[in-house]
């Protein structure tokens, strides 16, 4: 697919990439559900991450690509700001911002995706679940790390405290993305980044692109912080249920270790993210409060859309993937 893109990019340059992007944006009913726009944005970000083979590093600051990226980002951000509803904002005071975020993300008691995974998901559905998660989790923590040099003082120290843990606390084998790679291998899936790019729907790429857009635009550093807070605050409890689902299906610690690790880790991270990161940032840079709240609400909105899509596909007896998995299951061993 990347090879094909390489060829297509050259053709598109001749056809004026900017015009192609402009017409794709104008013709999209919903940017978050548009396969072409989300894939394009994903690949444009991949040039910055270096996460996919075949995307030359020299492309990173190509002005034509940057212009196209900005055009898609503008439409994506505008659509998101139109979709979300932000509850009555708190004062830019540490405790109040943390409480607001914890209220926003409070468990609802609704039996959603995590309960389905815990109690009912088949082995095939568990594999699909991992495939859909792999877009973010094989690069876990990276999108938020773009914000590190864009923050100062308390907020920077808090973000580093979380990210240091995400990156294994000095032990490469404990890097969360590496633990997730072990989970993928344990169920017979490939741990190569992007192996299942064609299988995932636009909204899964949109969840990842949201984080990359926030991270790579300094203007949106508040949104990165709010996103991370909401992400961490909705992680511990679902991860216990995900682990339960894989245990029920007979998988051992090699597979469930990732989820168990996150029950413990994210119970720490959510406290730091809510109070020391988001709360402190709002206090220190009150003009960022609105984006902190937007980032949190946007995180939940896209995760809900992606989660409900997955759940309703499975409840209807269908695959949650865009295309079926390759016949061999993509096993690397």
């Amino acid at each position, binding site marked *: 697919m990347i090879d094909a893109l390489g060829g297509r990019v050259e053709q598109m340059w001749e056809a004026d990439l900017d015009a192609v992007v402009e017409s794709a944006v104008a013709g999209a009913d919903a940017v978050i559900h548009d396969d072409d726009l989300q894939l394009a944005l994903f690949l444009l970000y991949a040039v910055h991450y270096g996460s996919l083979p075949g995307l030359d590093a020299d492309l990173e600051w190509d002005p034509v690509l940057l212009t196209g990226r900005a055009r898609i980002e503008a439409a994506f951000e505008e659509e998101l700001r139109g979709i979300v509803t932000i509850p009555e904002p708190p004062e830019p005071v540490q*405790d109040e911002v*943390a*409480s607001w975020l*914890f209220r926003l993300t*409070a*468990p609802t*008691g609704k039996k959603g995706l995590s309960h389905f995974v815990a109690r009912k998901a088949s082995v095939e559905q568990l594999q699909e679940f991992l495939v859909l998660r792999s877009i973010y989790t094989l690069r876990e923590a990276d999108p938020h790390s773009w914000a590190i040099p864009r923050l100062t003082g308390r907020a920077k120290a808090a973000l580093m*405290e979380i990210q*240091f*843990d995400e990156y294994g*606390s*000095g*032990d490469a084998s*404990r890097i969360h993305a590496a633990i997730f790679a072990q989970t993928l291998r344990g169920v017979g899936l490939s741990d190569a980044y992007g192996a299942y790019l064609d299988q995932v729907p636009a909204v899964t790429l949109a969840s990842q692109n949201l984080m990359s857009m926030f991270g790579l635009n300094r203007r949106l550093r508040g949104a990165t912080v709010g996103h991370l807070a909401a992400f961490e605050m909705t992680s*511990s*409890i679902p991860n*216990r249920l995900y682990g339960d689902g894989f245990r029920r299906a007979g998988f051992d610690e090699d597979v469930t270790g990732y989820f168990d690790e996150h*029950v*413990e*880790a*994210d*119970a*720490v991270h*959510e*406290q*730091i993210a809510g*109070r020391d990161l988001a709360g402190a940032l709002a206090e220190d840079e009150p003009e960022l409060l609105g984006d902190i709240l937007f980032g949190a609400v946007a995180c939940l909105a896209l995760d809900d859309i992606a989660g409900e899509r997955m759940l309703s596909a499975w409840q209807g007896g269908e695959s949650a993937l865009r295309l079926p998995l390759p016949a061999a299951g993509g096993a690397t061993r």
Partner: protein
Amino acid sequence: MTMREPASPARITAYPDGPLVVRGDFEIVDEQGVPVETSRRTVALCRCGVSAIKPWCDGTHKITGFHSDR
């Protein structure tokens, strides 16, 4: 350069309606004095009593509606 920083004294922060977060130079031991293993430098200790992974916090206080007095 080494990975280890000079030891800093343990610092325990009570997070509102949440766990006790421990940083610095600490060791957590069980009732027999056996160290409870952890790979992380900052840990959260259960304060509400309902965690399934005690002594660590697992976020369940948010379901039970635990409130701290402060």
